[in-house]
């Protein structure tokens, strides 16, 4: 397993194309998210020059996971789309708080694709550790994320400390929460 980190501009055009194609296959074709995206690519207004990415590749150079990191000093998903998940609090605008989004650890070449809410555990945990470490290296002390409640279960099983910021909101029948991950309380040794 190889992990690639970098901002939007540091990824070459082929890598960006492969990443957004992978995200389309996962989030739109597999998970059924209804997003207005270019044909075959999943990309939105939060993918820009300042956005950071973590990409997991297997030994055959296939993308098997990805994550997106945004500083909350820029517009971000929780602030713009799901602020009600913050239990009445103003979305943070703080250089030490980063948002994790578009997190996936689906191996699209595996025979048995996971269903929504399921995770392939080893890649998931390694990818999450890499993403949190990258955020920490960029000055984050806390990471927030719009997450299905299944992510809380995953984080606790994997030994991460995390908690919800408030009650879930039911979107398309699935409860979503704002999940807070304090980096100082988590061991991110890779």
């Amino acid at each position: 397993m190889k992990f690639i980190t970098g901002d939007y501009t540091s990824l070459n055009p082929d890598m960006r194309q492969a990443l957004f194609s992978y995200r389309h296959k996962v989030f739109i074709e597999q998970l059924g998210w209804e997003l207005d995206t270019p044909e075959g690519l999943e990309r939105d207004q939060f993918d820009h020059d300042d956005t950071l990415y973590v990409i997991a590749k297997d030994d055959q150079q296939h993308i098997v996971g990805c994550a997106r990191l945004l500083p909350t000093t820029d517009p971000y998903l929780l602030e713009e789309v799901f602020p009600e998940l913050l239990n009445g609090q103003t979305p943070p605008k703080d250089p030490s708080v980063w948002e994790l989004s578009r997190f996936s650890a689906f191996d699209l070449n595996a025979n048995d694709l996971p269903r929504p809410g399921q995770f392939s555990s080893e890649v998931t945990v390694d990818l999450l550790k890499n993403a949190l470490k990258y955020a920490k290296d960029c000055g984050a002390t806390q990471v927030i994320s719009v997450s299905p409640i299944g992510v809380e279960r995953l984080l606790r099983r994997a030994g991460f400390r995390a908690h919800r910021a408030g009650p879930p909101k039911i979107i398309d029948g699935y409860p979503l929460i704002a999940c807070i991950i304090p980096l100082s309380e988590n061991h991110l040794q890779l």
Partner: protein
Amino acid sequence: MATPCNDIINEQFRVSHDGYIRIPAEKLGSIQLLHLDSGIYSPEDQYPLLDRTRCKINGYTEWISLSSPYVSVGWDWDLIIHGTEPDLIKTGDVYTNLLMQSESNTDLSERENRRLIADSLSSLDWKSKVKSFITLKYA
């Protein structure tokens, strides 16, 4: 399903910078919870029939306090049917934004916090609510 109502403000609760609502541990019993949502994990993945008389389904349930800012508590359950009698059993930890403090205003450990909240659920009639809710939801 309970609907969060932002025009009722609970002055006793304040959300900390880290998202937690902190309260003295002795106040836990005063928090009234309403059912928000329950569901089955990936219904298409369930293999409920263990044999002719027993089956098992698992899912989640979510509860909130009466007013804003909301205390949120969720947990998982197994629905086990022996013969004709379905029973719900809570499984695993609770998930919450509530963090209790000791008399000296220090945070309880997360483990102790979760244990106390889980214990408090014994006085909540959650099983019948979840049963009726999922019966309607998946009918």
